[in-house]
């Protein structure tokens, strides 16, 4: 079973040289730590920064320089700043190659829910609805089951929707799944996880074709 770092590591394998990537808050942010050395990816922050660098040294913290998670960050070589309309302009016009998001639920048709639990949590959608409605390629980093052991990979989302049919791939502590017309297609198992266990933990339609390899994490 993967921990959150493992999930981030596995998603980092999806990065390609020259990609512009938007990383959501939480596990997605960790993906930045596992970018393969031989490639260059440029991280976009929807508040208005292209080229997010690592966290600053304590002496260099700058209140004017934060990411979309409101954490202090730095720039990299070739960074640019812009306003939030232009930022979502790049997102809507398909210039961001990959978006990695967290989710509370994903349905087997690619629907995603990650912004609201009615009566319980009202934080708002931030940029998530814009990202899922417009991004070319969306990978979700999420827990496969909730604390009670219930599947979060569902036939249909029970929580308010963030976007319809937009997720392309899901990486959980149990495996890697493509969203296909036949539902979640299992691509890889997490180390030590059996296909049967994944079947048991997946409520949505699960497609298993041939032998499913265990994923390789460097």
């Amino acid at each position, binding site marked *: 079973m993967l921990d959150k770092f493992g999930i981030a590591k596995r998603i980092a394998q999806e990065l390609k040289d020259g990609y512009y990537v938007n990383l959501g808050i939480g596990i997605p942010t960790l993906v930045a730590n596992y970018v393969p050395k031989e490639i260059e990816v440029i991280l976009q922050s929807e508040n208005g*920064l292209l080229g997010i660098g690592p966290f600053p040294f304590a002496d260099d913290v700058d209140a004017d320089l934060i990411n979309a998670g409101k954490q202090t960050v730095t720039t990299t070589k070739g960074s640019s700043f812009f306003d*939030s309309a232009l930022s979502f302009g790049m997102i809507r016009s398909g210039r961001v190659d990959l978006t990695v998001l967290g989710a509370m639920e994903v349905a087997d048709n690619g629907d995603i829910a990650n912004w609201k639990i009615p009566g319980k949590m009202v934080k708002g959608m*931030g940029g998530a*609805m*814009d990202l899922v409605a417009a991004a070319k390629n969306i990978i979700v980093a999420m827990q496969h089951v909730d604390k009670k052991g219930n599947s979060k990979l569902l036939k249909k989302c029970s929580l308010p929707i963030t976007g319809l049919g937009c997720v392309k791939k899901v990486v959980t502590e149990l495996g890697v799944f493509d969203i296909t017309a036949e539902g979640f297609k299992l691509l890889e198992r997490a180390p030590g996880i059996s296909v049967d266990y994944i079947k048991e933990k997946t409520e949505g339609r699960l497609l298993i074709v041939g032998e499913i390899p265990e994923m390789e994490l460097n």
Partner: protein
Amino acid sequence: MLTKLVANADEAIRDISDGAVIMLGGFGLCGIPENCIAALVRKGVKDLTCISNNAGVDDFGIGIMLKTRQVKKMISSYVGENAEFERQLLSGELEVELIPQGTLATRCLATGYGMPAIFTPAGVGTEVAEGKEIREFNGKPYLLEHAFDSDFSIVKAWKGDTHGNLIFRATSRNFNPLMAMAGKITIAEVEILVEAGELDPDQIHTPGIFVNRIFEGRNYEKRIEQVTTSLKA
């Protein structure tokens, strides 16, 4: 002579009265108009509708105006950092309209650009789409979203000049130039105010035509929500 210069925040907001619709720049606590928020609290103006991406934290930013119950309605995209906000919202004391961040930004842009409405795919198939017109272009559905209609815009810039030209710094730019274009009356507070002619015309982010009042703010706290650091090797 252009008379955009005002002495301070209190003079800048002098005619903001109860029930006004105001836009406030900033993302989280980054790039917020601290001086004007403090002045609005001093003035005690109430029943405000505030359009701002976030609602501050419990004791800073718009959060202060929530504590003093000056805000009737918030229009924001994310309000997760504010427990008092959540309490007022769940108890029904505060009216809240949550809208996608890109929609918020683009509706500001629409106002500033004299476009009455825009189309965006954000929110199609969600609660956000309820009651809104949906239209397909090239087979893809979009929501029709209207430009904002606000009485005042209050923004914070790094540098400004006496003609109202503004330059922002790093990610404190965020919604500020968009809202600067979108107010019937736009108020800008700046960290550094210079005479017209001292800023490079190629580097101005907001041309002065959009700014009605400007002043140099004082005692910026520039609080950080999450100080995250790297260790030196």
